[in-house]
């Protein structure tokens, strides 16, 4: 999941065409060059993104059990079913709450890390790499480590060992949903994996803030620390913050891997929207119609949330939004 959400950020900015002597043959035909360079990506985009989207919308209006090439048109029945007779609406609610928690926490943690690393006089590259490394770990691998060594329910799990020093009984973090310790496992895992990546984004933005602003503020009598952070750093980070929050929000709604591996589908709590869709379409029901209907609803929701957020925080209006 994470790879797809970060795709937009990871893309390099379009390189400016070099004015210095382009090779012969490529010079004259700009259109050809355009298709040459964007073609492969566009083909992939069409085959793996646009066709499935269209197919999904089409499926959502059909009785598509055990098949992805159905013939029985059922109108909005699938939508009615997924919204009334399923756990899908619950999962949306659960994940709005999850997003409301994980988004600000990750934002704050990655900003904090970025500020700390930015302050470093030496070994900056080292710490930058260390904090970034977890991004390379897959959610599935991390979930297994969290489940089998950090948060096992037995006495020799790391968390229970530490608690044992203080005489606290063993806790079954994942099996027992009350109290909901599983959130500790899920949130700590997601923070660990995500923070480093967003830290890099913040770090880049921090280094782009002109030093003159701080100098001017100092001359005007602003105190270093909280005051400059609040009146200079934070406003200067606005564009990055908005992008980060947007990406975090989408990632939260798309949460699947770690929930699937830690909570499993044999629970009724902490089921993400994607898990419910997976259960409906792939898991056991094989009801691709209802699953697609849910996917369409989820996409619309994410679109709406994103647009609303853009409206409120001024995403896309760029620097002049300040």
């Amino acid at each position, binding site marked *: 999941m994470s790879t797809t959400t970060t795709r937009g950020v990871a893309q390099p900015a379009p390189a400016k065409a070099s004015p210095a002597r382009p090779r012969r043959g490529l010079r004259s035909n700009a259109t050809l060059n355009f298709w040459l360079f964007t073609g492969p990506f566009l083909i992939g985009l069409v085959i793996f993104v646009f066709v499935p989207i269209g197919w999904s919308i089409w499926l959502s209006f059909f009785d598509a059990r055990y*098949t992805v090439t159905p013939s029985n048109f059922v109108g909005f029945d699938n939508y009615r079913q997924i919204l009334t007779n399923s756990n899908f609406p619950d999962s949306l609610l659960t994940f709005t709450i999850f997003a409301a928690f994980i988004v600000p926490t990750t934002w704050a943690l990655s900003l904090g890390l970025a500020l700390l690393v930015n302050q470093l006089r030496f070994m900056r590259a080292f710490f930058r790499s260390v904090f970034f490394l977890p991004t390379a770990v897959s959610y599935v691998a991390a979930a297994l480590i969290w489940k089998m060594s950090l948060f096992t329910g037995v006495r020799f799990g790391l968390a229970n060992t530490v608690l044992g020093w203080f005489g606290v009984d063993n806790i079954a973090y994942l099996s027992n949903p009350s109290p909901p310790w599983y959130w500790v496992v899920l949130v700590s895992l997601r923070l660990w994996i995500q923070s480093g990546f967003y830290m890099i984004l913040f770090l880049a933005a921090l280094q782009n803030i002109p030093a003159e602003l701080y100098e001017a503020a100092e001359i005007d009598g602003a105190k270093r620390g909280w005051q400059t952070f609040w009146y200079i750093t934070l406003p200067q980070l606005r564009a990055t913050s908005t992008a980060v929050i947007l990406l975090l929000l989408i990632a939260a709604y798309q949460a699947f891997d770690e929930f699937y591996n830690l909570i*499993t589908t044999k629970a009724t709590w902490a089921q993400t929207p994607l898990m419910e869709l997976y259960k409906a379409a792939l898991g056991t029901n094989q009801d691709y119609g209802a699953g697609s209907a849910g996917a369409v609803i989820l996409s619309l929701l994410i679109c709406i949330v994103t647009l609303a957020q853009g409206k409120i925080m001024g995403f896309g209006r760029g620097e002049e939004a300040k």
Partner: protein
Amino acid sequence: MSAMSNSNWSRRSIFRAAAGMAAAGTLAACGGNNGRGGGSGSGTNLVQFFHAYGEAGTEQAIKRYAKAYSKANVSTTWITGTNFEAKLFSSLLTKQAPDVFEFHPQLQLIKSGQVADLSDIIDPVKSDFNPADINSHTVDGKIYGVRMIDDPQFFYYRKSMLEKAKVEVPTTLDELLEAAAKLTTDKVKGIDLGNDFTPVQGNLIWSAGADTLDANNQIAYHTDAVVQGLKQLRQLFTSGHVLLDAPTDWWDPSSLNQGLCAIQWGGLWSMPAMQKALGDDLGIFPFPKVGDNGKLSVTNGGWSMFVNAKGKNVEAAKAYVKWLWIEQKKYQEDWALSYGFHVPPRSSIAAQATKLKSGLPAEAVKLFTDYGHFDNIAWDQTMITALNDVIASSVRKGGDPEAALDACDKKVDVELKKLFG
């Protein structure tokens, strides 16, 4: 838009993963791990899906059998992880679908036309199979799968621990709760029912004198005794006497072997590993009675071979299944007895299974015969999942069992309507 693309993306990636696995299987086949045997194969390629058995040597065994088959090149996809059914079901819709796969008899596979009728290969040897295994694979007189192994599931216990705590083998759920309490120490938990308690969901129903569905395929699990049983399981779950979130789950013998618990739910397949680790310090008993009209019960699970009816080589696949799972008794015996223990579904093989004739394995076979409940073909995956939710919400979450069963009824009724109209 990225959300939609991504939810599709995940489906795609699952398909591709399945395709990748199939491709990996093909690549492995290039390495000589198939029946090609220097061109002796007829050129037909078959793919078979197996879930990952935990016992050492199982994967090699399945590939060895396949290699010995000369009429087709059979490649094996060995699916690790916990969700075999999801991977199987999703790949059945793609071009990379297996020709042959193992699963449990479930009516929706037949109603949806996903599995082929195997009557013609089974009929000649029908009388050699355990009648219950024939019955559980029969719909309207046609037999849709060949049983490979029967897997009784029951409680294992450490005799020494029960003796030390002066606990008798429990015969009622009340006694089981008491035993768990007495057996729990600061190092050892009393009992392990699997991390999510779902392995015993069928037993809770049978032991309460109810059934999943009745003879007319109507809901039969929603009784007062079952509700009572769910409440008792909830009590057990919160008692602190249960092993939860162990590194390995119920189907692995490690929890009992490593002394994490005194009683563990498990399958016959674990018995050789447990006997090796614990010697004589091992006993077994069926799921105890629930309520006043309770009965002892054992789950008779198992795996069967099915042929993908929509595959490209249905006849070749049937021929392979016939060759291996009907004709090659030596392999069938090897599969049932050489790795984990399984009860051979064919009486001619069971009669020669000396490993199951004495001691604890013989006791297990007796539990299998006396208290075992076989698969009900009409009780399909959707219903099993609905019942999983009952265990999750009433036993683990502490919700009202009555309400949880009502919710389950709704889902099961929808499914019954789809299956039987």
